[in-house]
């Protein structure tokens, strides 16, 4: 991870060929995403025959099979959006903290957003999607600031261990508080308990539309920060020497990440590890230049979440496994792999 920013310029003479290779990878990923979309619409808990799928796609909604397929369309859209948002948020956080273990789930940001939503539901009786959204964003922002503050105290700044521990402790604290808030309210406990296991099941376009502006803002801010993150990767001193306003770069990129994961958590509930896995895999494919890494991560994140959702629907028939459980089962070993790769002194 250290010195990751040196790579783009060092590869200067191969720039053209590198770009062609990246373009090819991107095309491959987009094809994969298309395949997964098709799979997500055709495969599910219920087997639906081809004619019915075609009929459902053209808007019919008469048989049970057609209705089942019709439900899968918004679900697929939500999985794409959530995966893209979480992966980009993870990449942004890894860039801001220069920490290979950063992820909205691990750093407690999703848990903070979840706590804020639960408090808003239990104490202020909110029901509208907008109110969910604003409370989730506030919670995500607060948790980010808190974890980063605690994790960067002392000598050495924000090391992966300090940040991860601060994030894990914050997650546990938020989880305890969520239970304490929910327990006296038997009327909302069931709903919140199932929302706490993040997933994309039950998505409707009515619930997705309100978050679109926030996600769009997050994506735009994130992409606009790519160059700043490349400078940050060189270290604060060098970035400042290159004329970058380091504090401003951090604030902008963090704002993007908070928008993305707060909005996602508001509709899906907390989903972890996507933001950890995807940027790392993308770095292996296309290198460390954030101008490429961020768009790649969004596409690959959408692929990962969509694939996890399809797997969750297929492996436990007739039931379903929520997508956050699949991502944790895939992501936790990956997290351990990243930890093992680091030398002790870097941890």
């Amino acid at each position: 991870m250290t010195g990751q920013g040196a790579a783009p310029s060092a590869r200067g003479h191969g720039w053209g060929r590198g770009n062609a290779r990246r373009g090819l990878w991107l095309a491959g990923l987009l094809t994969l995403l298309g395949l997964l979309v098709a799979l997500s619409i055709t495969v599910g808990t219920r087997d639906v025959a081809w004619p019915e799928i075609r009929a459902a796609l053209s808007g019919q909604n008469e048989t049970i099979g057609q209705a089942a397929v019709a439900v899968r369309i918004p679900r697929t859209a939500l999985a794409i959006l959530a995966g893209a948002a979480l992966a980009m948020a993870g990449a942004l956080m890894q860039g801001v903290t220069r920490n290979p273990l950063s992820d909205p789930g691990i750093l407690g940001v999703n848990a903070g957003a979840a706590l804020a939503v639960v408090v808003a539901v239990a104490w202020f009786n909110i029901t509208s999607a907008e109110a969910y959204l604003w409370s989730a964003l506030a919670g995500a922002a607060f948790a980010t600031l808190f974890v980063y503050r605690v994790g960067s105290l002392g000598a050495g700044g924000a090391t992966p261990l300090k940040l991860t521990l601060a994030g894990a402790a914050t997650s546990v604290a938020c989880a305890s508080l969520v239970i304490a808030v929910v327990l006296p309210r038997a009327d909302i406990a069931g709903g919140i308990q199932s929302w706490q296991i993040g997933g994309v099941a039950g998505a409707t376009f009515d619930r997705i539309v309100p978050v679109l502006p926030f996600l769009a803002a997050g994506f735009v801010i994130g992409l606009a920060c790519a160059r700043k993150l490349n400078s940050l990767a060189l270290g604060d001193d060098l970035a400042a020497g290159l004329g970058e306003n380091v504090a401003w770069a951090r604030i902008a990129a963090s704002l993007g990440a908070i928008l993305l994961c707060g909005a996602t958590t508001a509709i899906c509930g907390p989903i972890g590890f996507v933001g950890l896995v995807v940027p790392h895999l993308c770095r292996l494919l296309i290198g460390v230049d954030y101008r490429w890494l961020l768009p790649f991560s969004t596409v690959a994140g959408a692929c990962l979440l969509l694939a996890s959702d399809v797997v969750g629907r297929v492996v436990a028939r007739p039931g379903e496994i929520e997508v956050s459980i699949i991502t944790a089962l895939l992501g936790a070993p990956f997290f351990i792999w990243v930890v093992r790769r680091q030398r002790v002194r870097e941890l």
Partner: protein
Amino acid sequence: MTTRALPIDPTPADRDRRLARQRLTVAILGLLVCLLFGLTLVLGQSYTPPADVARVLLGQDVDGASFLVGTLRLPRAVMLLLAGFCFGMGGVVFQIMLRNPLASPDIIGITSGASAAAVFMLIVLSLTGPVVSIVAVIAGLGVALLVYVLAARNGVAGTRLILVGIGVSAMLHSITAYILSSAPAWNLQEALRWLTGSVNGAQIEDAPPLVLALAVFGGLLFTQRRNLEALRLGDDTAAALGVPLARSRIAIVVAAVGMIATATAVTGPIAFISFLSGPIASRLIGSGTSLLLPAALIGAILALAGDYTGQFLLLPSRYPVGVITGALGAPYLLYLIVRINRSGRSL
């Protein structure tokens, strides 16, 4: 607790004074445990005179009190006492052996492993009885081995072990959450037992396995207490002092995991008791004396006081013990991280 040097007593009289003070502290802790145990028996939603409680304990039939004390309060108090002992002692053993307060079994995933195994046995296979405890112990040992193996690369570094443990823990936690959410009789109280620990519905029949575990594994630890003290000084020093490193480490881990997993199979992973007991004991006692007994007593105090608080001091709501200890432990974890970060000591 790791950096504190061995006490240097200028004169034998100083040493005697220190030992006397430490013995007094242990006696006070023991007295506190008895008081809290008595309080749980005497004072619940209604007051039962101590004389009646004593008669119930002696096996006499007392109108009203027999059910209240014998069926409701006694099993609860006994389970809290035993589980507190197990969590406290098992936790401090890990912290001493790995020379890091963060390396407690509830942070590095051993408790989550036992909990996931117990949930799997109880809900998926519908098994009850001693086999659940046995499988929980095996699962706990398996997780301990897994974390150790995954963290080993050119020797086990404490930081890497903790991070690997957090990853493993996240994975096991999501398995528990999935099994609970897909259980046919989804019930928040039952779920909370396995996610944060609870003694609601405790039965006196659950006590024998815990007593057995305490006797067997506690005895094993007692034989290893000198080796454990030596391990606290570092592996090289311990080896120089004649400790058979590999053999005594295996004995110590088996004993500690055995205790914690047996307790987890009955009460669920009561949050943070094993994490909190060791540092508190170390604060109160200082060094030069084995921390096993003081930590066990503090574990019992935390469990009894936490449950009493959750049941009767936060009315009108009632919270299971794990929510209270979790709400207590998470801030302490954050405080510990802040303090370690401030002091500039890398973890």
